[in-house]
């Protein structure tokens, strides 16, 4: 099956700022893809290029088999978008905005509209200027999720939502995935990414620094080991993949490259293990490592 989104070596500059600097991104049809990166990494710029709002300076971008700049009208029938910063018309009610965006998109599912209003606990009669940030976000979400489209492009969709609505949102995305829709989800909420996404791409300063399933990514990181051994360890520091070794008598604490875990455990077993706590890398560590890495 063709990829829903295929971006290769994308470049976009604004004056002297190089917002995208050779970015790659592949989203397979039917997957929920997490799109991660620190603030200002180029996530929204990438999404705006996919929507044909910005024109790429170099590189290739394909969206649902078409050209996002040229085939705007045909492609936009097949996708729905939730911007990261939702602004509404101050004198239009939320219900009016939902129906308007639905019609402009080519119709929305009435049953789903009613269902989503209930699940998100949104009052559609309020005027745009009276909604709080979270409620504006809900208006955009209802409008997008009620549309019968193949692809959802969501730019930090849960920022500003309360935990209950956030949970309702996660349920909705799980349903979307089950019904075979493709979702590109830009987010900072790692637990959400972990719960929802099949694969993730991490970008930094306009480049893709890592991409794959969470299991793949974890494999490239370090596992923390805290163990009490039968005897003081010898030569542990010289084993490949061991980092930050800290020895207090028979107690050892260190990190090990997950790929070298087998060899290190064999060495520990040879010395004799009294107790052992092993922690897989948390998602936070994974991201912090990428976010803070030198460019």
């Amino acid at each position, binding site marked *: 099956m063709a990829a829903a989104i295929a971006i290769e070596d994308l470049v976009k500059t604004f004056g002297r700022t190089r917002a995208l600097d050779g970015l790659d991104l592949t989203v397979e049809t039917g997957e929920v893809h997490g799109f991660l990166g620190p603030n200002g990494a180029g996530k929204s710029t990438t999404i705006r290029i996919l929507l044909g709002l910005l024109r790429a300076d170099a590189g290739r971008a394909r969206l649902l088999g078409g050209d996002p700049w040229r085939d*705007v009208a045909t492609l936009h029938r097949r996708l729905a*978008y939730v911007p990261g910063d939702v602004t509404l018309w101050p004198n239009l*009610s939320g219900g009016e*905005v939902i129906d308007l965006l639905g019609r402009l998109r*080519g119709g929305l599912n009435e049953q789903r509209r009613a269902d989503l209003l209930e699940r998100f606990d949104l009052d559609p009669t309020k*005027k745009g200027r009276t909604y709080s940030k979270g409620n504006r976000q809900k208006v955009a979400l209802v409008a997008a999720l009620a549309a019968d489209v193949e692809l959802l492009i969501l730019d930090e969709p849960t920022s500003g939502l309360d935990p209950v609505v956030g949970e309702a949102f996660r349920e909705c995305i799980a349903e979307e995935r089950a019904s075979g829709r493709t979702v590109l989800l830009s987010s900072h909420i790692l637990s959400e990414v972990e719960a929802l996404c099949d694969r993730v791409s991490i970008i930094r300063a306009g480049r893709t620094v890592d991409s794959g399933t969470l299991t793949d990514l974890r494999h490239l990181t370090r596992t923390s080991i805290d163990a009490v051994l039968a005897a003081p360890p010898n030569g542990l520091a010289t084993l490949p993949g061991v980092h930050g070794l800290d020895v207090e008598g028979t107690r050892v604490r260190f990190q090990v490259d997950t790929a070298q875990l087998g060899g290190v455990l064999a060495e520990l077993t040879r010395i004799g293990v009294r107790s052992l706590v092993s922690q897989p890398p948390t998602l936070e560590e994974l991201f912090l490592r990428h976010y803070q890495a030198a460019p």
Partner: protein
Amino acid sequence: MTQALLGAGELVKLDLRRDRIMIPVWVYALTATAASTAYSFRHLYDTPQSRLEFATAVANNASTRAMYGPVHDPSTIGGLTAWRLVTIGATLVGVMSVLVVMRHTRADEEAGRLELISAGVVGRHAALAAGVLVALIASLAVGLGAAIGLIAVGMPTVGSLAFGLSWCTAGLFFAAVAAVAAQLSESARTANAIADVGPSWLSWASPIGWAQQLRPFAGERWWVFGVAVGAAALIGWGGFALAGRRDLGAGLLPPRPGPARGELHGPVALAWRLQRGTLLGWTAGFAIYGVAIGGLADGVTAIVGSSESTRKILEEMGGAKGIVDAFLATAMGILGLVVAGYAVQAVLRLRVEETALRAEPVLATRVGRIRWACSHVLFAVVGSVLILAAAGLGAGLAHGLRSHDVGQQLPRVLGAALVQVPAAWVLAGVTLVLFGLAPRFTAVAWGVLGGCLLLGQLGPVLKLAQWAMDISPFTHVPKLPGSALSVAPLVGLTAVAVVAAAVGLAGFRRRDVG
């Protein structure tokens, strides 16, 4: 009170920093206008004799008198300059004042920026006080600039200062009016309308009238300034009192809930919803204004008087009918310029929607860029026709009823209003070119409109060359009623507007949105 104004000083600095381009442009444009007008007058009418002739011609032309008021002192260059510029300058300074106050009070509040500021160590009235103060600083700068400019070209010092003060008075007064209007409505757009439209109907009760009554270069009456300051202080106090009674973000006119279901079917329906209030307001206002002009037209001959010399002039102009037609033609010309302002702001709505990020969700649907842009441009195109038709119908009916000749006058006056349409379209086209090719400089459209206004107002008295006058589309509009209707310039203007629109739309298709 000091508690309520805490932090105002810092806010004034912030506001001045944000206006570091806008205010100097206003000051420069108005100063240059004052100085260059006085300078040209000095060369064009260099003898008392020639000045007197000019003043007599003015006194005898009812339409100019109705527009600019009487010449208080025709014997000096200063007197002529004051006559020509005080009214129009005072109006412009008033507009500047309203824009500055709104920008730093209600518009910031609407955008949520004021919330960020109010959470700091900032008094309740600090933002309003800062906005008003910045408007006063700007008005003072304009007044001072004008005075220095006039002195520099050799005008008497006292008169020049009085001239500057007359402009300053208007700025002061309108800052106070804006301070009240900013409290009344939740939206800066509505508040601007309240401040702008309200007083303009009460010409003589307004500060524009007071600016004239200061009589620069013609026996200055300084006490008028005192009256204006008193009135402004009273109104301004009202604004602060109202501000103390309401919540941040709320108006005194409360919001109502809207429908749970929407009936908007497409981009045009959305544009209609966003623009209808403005369009209906303009149409109604222009219908009323038209009636006023039409009602006045027939009486113009009486104002001119029945002396021998004026009768002669009247005959030269084609009899009494000629002077009524000339009045109507002048009035319609000015309406045409104002409607061009409507067309400009209708097109600029595109930019407003874009920068507010509201265009993005619409363009992310299957609505194409051109379709979206055209939905708003439609209002500039059709709206100009509607508004001018309303003015023409009002004026034609009123004039026809007064002269007992509705059957003939109505189509003549309506035609005189409608010939302005293509010129307004040209301004809309220019705005669209800016939007498509240089979106960050869309405000230049207002400069172009201001240039057309100054060319039309000052060009003839300054005896500018024809090629310079021809730059303004309004120069090409047939002077109806009274002269022959020539179709060629109308077709030409329309063609220019169409080409400009095509260039603008093509540019918008190619550029980045956002």
